[in-house]
């Protein structure tokens, strides 16, 4: 069906909020920069704030936008395929797989450039295991999520073991990596994720369309000329790739992929998370979480992942309670 008016309106409103949050995030902190100065600096005028705005804050806020979009889309895809709002990459083990691989790399003295590829591989491997366990029963939603939760717990335990048996200093580095943070990160990570998104753009356009049959049962979908198993596999693969990629770049910014798609879905009142609105909501969430992490206990900085986890925990409970109906 054509894109609904409500979806467009909601997306536009979230986009406006995101732009506002973007500018606010560039203003706030020490030193405070007035919005007018931020805009002047952004649009190429030379101002005394160029270093603060363009060098220190801009890369991080742009990264937050891209990270949030990746998590939002990844969560929307995986939740739609599993037909379960709990099935997000950080619940079903993908994030934990990336975490374990990164921890092993960090504690075994591997070079810094190895860490992101290792995390990517770990995330994909974990997803393959979970999909393998769940797919034996045709990706029946409940089983897939249960398999994912079990794998996530096992991977988490392994990660703890690796961290605790490593040199304390390496364990500490791994710990910081595990709680996703945008501090000290910027254009490099942004480029990787932006390239990933750009390359996947045609695939995402296909996904937005293909998702329309994801809520139908297999017989109905087959009757409409769809191969539901292949379609689900394709959609899940895109979601897994995005989730593993973004986790490899910034660590585990938990719960964004869980929360953003469902918030977007409720706002547009659709049967499944809309991709664009989920991406925008994810961006907004991460920009705000990173900002809050920077300001709340300044000068101490909290990783964005801590803030999103603090929001996500209660939200997860809310979902579990609501799920009864």
């Amino acid at each position: 069906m054509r894109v609904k008016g409500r979806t467009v309106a909601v997306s536009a409103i979230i986009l406006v909020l995101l732009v506002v949050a973007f500018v606010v995030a560039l203003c706030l902190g020490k030193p405070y920069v007035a919005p007018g100065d931020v805009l002047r600096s952004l649009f190429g005028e030379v101002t005394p704030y160029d270093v603060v705005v363009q060098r220190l804050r801009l890369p991080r806020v742009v990264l937050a936008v891209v990270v949030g979009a990746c998590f939002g889309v990844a969560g929307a895809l995986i939740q739609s395929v599993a037909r379960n709002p709990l099935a997000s990459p950080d619940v079903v083990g993908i994030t934990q797989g990336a975490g374990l691989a990164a921890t092993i790399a960090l504690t075994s003295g591997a070079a810094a450039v190895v860490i992101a590829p290792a995390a990517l591989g770990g995330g994909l491997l974990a997803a393959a295991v979970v999909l393998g366990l769940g797919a034996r029963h045709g990706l029946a939603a409940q089983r897939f999520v249960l398999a994912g939760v079990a794998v996530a717990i096992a991977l988490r335990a392994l990660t703890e073991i690796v961290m605790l048996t490593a040199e304390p200093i390496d364990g500490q580095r791994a710990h910081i990596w595990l709680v996703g943070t945008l501090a000290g990160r910027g254009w490099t990570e942004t480029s990787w994720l932006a390239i990933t998104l750009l390359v996947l753009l045609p695939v995402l356009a296909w996904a937005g369309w293909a998702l329309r049959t994801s809520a139908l049962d297999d017989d109905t979908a087959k009757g409409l000329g769809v191969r539901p198993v292949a379609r689900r596999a394709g959609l899940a693969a895109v979601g897994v790739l995005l989730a593993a990629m973004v986790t490899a770049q910034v660590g585990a910014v938990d719960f964004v992929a869980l929360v953003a798609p469902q918030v977007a879905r409720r706002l547009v009142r659709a049967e499944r998370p809309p991709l664009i609105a989920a991406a925008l909501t994810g961006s907004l969430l991460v920009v705000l979480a990173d900002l809050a992490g920077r300001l709340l206990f300044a000068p101490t900085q909290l990783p964005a992942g801590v803030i999103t986890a603090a929001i996500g925990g209660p939200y997860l409970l809310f979902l579990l309670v609501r799920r009864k109906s």
Partner: protein
Amino acid sequence: MKLIARDLSAGYGPRSVFENLGVELPAGAFTVIVGPNACGKSTLLRTLARLLPVRHGSVLLDGADIHSLPTREVARRLGVLPQSPLVPEGVTVRDLVGRGRQPHQSWWRQWSDQDSAAVHEAMGQAGVGDLATRAVDQLSGGQRQRVWIAMTLAQQTEALLLDEPTTFLDLAHQVEVLDLLGRMRDDGRTVVAVLHDLNQAARYADHLVAMRDGRVVASGAPREIVTAELVRNVFGLDCVVVPCPVTGAPLVVPA
């Protein structure tokens, strides 16, 4: 469009529901499949519509093996309504009927005026035009059933396969749906339906297929094959068969 099953075997897990089954569904006719519960009607319909793989034998759609034709192409020629489709949460009637257009669309050309027209027409034919903006999961069973029929009609196929399209409907709506299927046949389409009411089957069918325990016991024009003997044989029911006072079709009255 003609559907022929040759030497067909299908089933679930280790168990076959039917083996070496042969059946012909004539083009441009309204065929009704009847038989007691669990005799394999749905399994046959699902296999004919390539929803279930065949174990042996073949299903021929105008002479071509349906399981080796591209599934999208089949979906443009043959529409199928499964017995109890899962209702997606929070989808509106118009939106769900619109999914019937899937085989005519692609991701780079998602919606056309032709699609809008087909959805509008299908909703009108199935009598759900007034419900267009309602959520499907909040409708009554009968309304919902007609929405699914509308979705299948929106597919605009030459052949329609429907599994118990009249369950959940009150008598008036049952007749309405059967009349609608009759009109589809009059338009030249091939209509195949599983029905559980033998009298409705005898009244509406051009061609009747009676099944028991995974076998086709009889097939042909209802006036020729519906006898007390057949009903006892298929349903294990003693009855008398009299001509219907309205249409003259055989009417089964339990003895």
